[in-house]
């Protein structure tokens, strides 16, 4: 069930250039069921910024009733969020949307997780859930540059981890697709989150396979009421059929929506 609650900041850390890791605690955490879901955060007190900000859940600790997000402080809302300190409260609406289906890969099988930049975070909880049930995971993570990279170690502890940086300052120089081209494994499922061109490339590359893509779109309500975040569904003539990224997604099986 979606809840609206003031959650307490357990920790807030800068972990890379402009990248913050924020852990919150509260009852709402017990509603989090699936990796890949997100929350909608109020980052200021008054009317400025007015709208909530959608941020993915990057890990969940059900016992402690805590969850973690990783976000880039870019515009005014995320900058305000990054200025908040331990013990302060954050107004959270969530958990929202439908996440990655962990059941798409079975014990002993291999899953490929492909993340780009600020699309990397939700893959972390996914990877934890997959490895927990005995799925072998391979991570391919792309960043702009070494300074913007985060969680390499955390992902490495869970499985094979390849890094690509656009400027070549770390790992493979280039895009995640440059790494993927060299992978020879047989993947039971492919999961991806990141910029749309990347998702497109992943979809094209793994045609006919079990691919799950997490989309991003500007949001109003975050719960399915305002029609802000709509994308075209692949099926149906006339282009009138659609999906809402916030409530039908953000994760869709490849081929379900037009990228």
């Amino acid at each position, binding site marked *: 069930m979606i809840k609206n609650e003031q959650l307490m900041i357990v920790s807030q850390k800068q972990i890379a250039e402009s990248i913050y890791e924020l852990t919150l605690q509260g009852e709402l955490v017990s509603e989090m069921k699936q990796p890949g879901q997100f929350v909608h955060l109020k980052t200021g007190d008054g009317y400025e*910024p*007015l*709208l909530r900000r959608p941020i993915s859940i990057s890990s969940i600790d059900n016992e402690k009733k805590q969850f973690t997000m990783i976000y880039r402080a870019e515009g005014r809302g995320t900058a305000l969020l990054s200025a908040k300190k331990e013990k302060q409260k954050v107004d959270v609406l969530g958990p929202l949307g439908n996440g990655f289906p962990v059941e798409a890969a079975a014990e002993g099988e291999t899953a490929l997780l492909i993340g780009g930049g600020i699309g990397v975070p939700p893959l972390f909880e996914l990877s934890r859930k997959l490895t927990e049930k005995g799925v072998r995971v391979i991570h391919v993570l792309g960043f702009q540059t070494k300074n913007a990279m985060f969680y390499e170690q955390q992902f490495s502890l869970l499985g094979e981890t390849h890094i690509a940086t656009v400027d070549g300052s770390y790992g493979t120089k280039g895009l995640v697709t440059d790494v993927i081209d060299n992978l020879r494994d047989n993947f039971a499922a492919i999961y991806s989150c990141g910029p749309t061109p990347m998702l497109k490339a992943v979809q094209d590359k793994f045609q006919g396979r079990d691919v799950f893509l997490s989309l991003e779109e*500007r949001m109003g309500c975050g719960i399915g*009421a305002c029609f802000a975040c*709509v994308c075209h569904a692949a099926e149906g003539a006339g282009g009138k059929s659609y999906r809402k990224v916030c409530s039908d997604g953000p994760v869709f099986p490849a081929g379900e929506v037009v990228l």
Partner: protein
Amino acid sequence: MNTLSINLPGLDLKNPIMPASGCFGFGREYSQFYDLSSLGAIMIKATTAEPRFGNPTPRVAETSAGMLNAIGLQNPGLEKVLEEELTWLEQFDVPIIANVAGSCEEDYVHVAREISKAPNVHALELNISCPNVKEGGIAFGTIPEVAREVTRKVKQVSDVPVYVKLSPNVSSIVEIAKAVESGGADGITMINTLLGMRIDLRTGKPVLANTTGGLSGPAIKPVALRMVYEVNQHISIPIIGMGGISTAEDAMEFIYAGASAVAVGTANFVDPFVCPKIIDELPGLLQKIGAAHISECIGRSWKQNEAIANHRA
């Protein structure tokens, strides 16, 4: 005694608070948060004869104390709204105000005739003011004679009272209000969004795919209030006011300005519980103000002035 009840044409409202059209879908999402029967009414998303996909994305952008939207009247079309949405809404004890949109007079007439037959639709809201569709819409709301005519035609076919939703993007909103009143409107709802835009300096292009969009939220409240205040003094049909309402005090400002009830739009996105919160706070506010019933507050700002003026004269 219910100090918040208000009777308007077609509408027996438990209280004067209702979600604004387009900001509440068809109620399903918000029914997760609270019992929709607690609302005064629900203004459902604009319905057109045929399903509409609407505009390309991005469809929303943030501005200072406001937001722009260019949804483009996306909706599942008359048939589905009747069969799926309105039927589903019947489980709640709440009057529905159906927002009717179209790109020509016949569209309005057709949708109005059909949707007004639904048992829980107690009133229509003629949306002649959507700034986000090119093929008409807005023109209906800016030319008095056109507004009057579409009102008249819709009145002829509607089974329920007709409210007309006015656009603020006009030189004289009083003129339009008078025109729709003379066309037979039972009430006015106002305001729809102000036409605005934002430009992204990184891309050099407008943020919204549709270029321009409708500005809503606290930023527009002073404009909306002024318009309600002006229109209320020139017409005798009731007004449902809206534009930036986020608190019980905001709601009361509109009622003082002359609204008989109010709608809450954008604020639902910020706080999904905003409508029931305002409903809960109103009785306390009434007490503070020293009014026994909400109806005493309608138009108080100018009626008081008038009383003073008369007294002086």
